[in-house]
């Protein structure tokens, strides 16, 4: 994995992006803008699933109408997010917040998968109910908490408190970040 990261880092495009005066900030701003759309819309869906607001709109309709916006903003998020990673691959890979963020993203994906495999299949039964069933509400709470965690971790990637080139770190941190303090990276 580290080899892949070093290979990515050796790309002229990667360095160019990182050092670019305007491209990097622009991509980062777009990433944050897309956040308002994507997480904002996910939060709207979750709020409907919680049964606290938008009770007049059937769940499936709310879902269907928000979906195109959510999908487009998700694509923008992932694309800009990947570019931000590509600009600084080695450091991101060894950054503890980046790693927690990836884990939370996977859990958020699983949450969606479980929701779709489970209670969503019977949405017709509770579509117009103001307060959806418990497992739907549980998925909504999980989604809200996970995305808050993802945003927090994402913001924290910028800070280098636990970075590999800042030793000494506790052994657990070096283990979690696959950092070998005795190896000097090129």
């Amino acid at each position, binding site marked *: 994995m580290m080899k892949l990261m070093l290979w990515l880092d050796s790309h002229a495009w990667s360095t160019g992006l990182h050092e670019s005066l305007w491209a990097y900030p622009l991509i980062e701003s777009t990433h*944050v*803008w897309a956040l308002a759309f994507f997480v*904002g819309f*996910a939060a709207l869906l979750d709020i409907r699933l919680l049964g606290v607001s938008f009770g007049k709109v059937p769940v499936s309709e709310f879902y269907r109408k928000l979906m195109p916006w959510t999908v487009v903003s998700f694509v923008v998020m992932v694309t800009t997010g990947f570019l931000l990673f590509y600009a600084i691959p080695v450091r991101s890979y060894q950054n503890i917040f980046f790693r927690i963020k990836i884990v939370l993203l996977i859990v958020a994906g699983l949450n969606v998968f479980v929701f779709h495999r489970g209670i969503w299949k019977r949405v017709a039964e509770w579509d117009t109910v103001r307060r959806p069933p418990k497992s739907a509400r549980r998925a909504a709470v999980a989604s809200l908490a996970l995305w808050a965690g993802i945003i927090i971790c*994402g913001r924290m990637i910028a800070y280098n408190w636990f970075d590999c080139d800042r030793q000494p770190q506790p052994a657990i941190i070096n283990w979690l970040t696959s950092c070998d303090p005795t190896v000097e990276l090129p």
Partner: protein
Amino acid sequence: MIESWYPFFEWCEFTTIGQIVRQSLWLFPVIEAFHLVAFALLGGMILIVDLRLLGLILRQHSTSDLWYGARHWRRGALAAMVVTGVLLFLSEAVKCFYSQPFWIKIGALILAVLFSFTIGSRIAKAGDRVGPIWPKLAGLISIVLWGTVAWGGRWIGFSG
């Protein structure tokens, strides 16, 4: 004229709270992270109403239903944004004073709040009854103003 405000910005930075946030290693990043979480929530609440005003989403439902549905979340998120935003500002008020994006953000924020709490909310509550043009115009103005606030906020971090 703006120069005469400098002492106020300096005073802000030397308030106890400003100094506590400034001198802490982790307070600023943590507050900023929560500022961003509230931003995502506020963004969603503003967008659903604005996109409906523009006629791009949930057209079968009235704007006022969506406006009222989002109301508590919008207020809560805005309050969280203002509280965390003021804390962040106090810790680096002098930097903000010299930051162009900061002034753009504050200018847009004042306009956005004034607009949303007066004309914006009235049109949202009235919905399509005020004709086809006004809701679209209100949605567009709101998106542009709040978008500028968000953009300016991000660029404060890039300057200096």
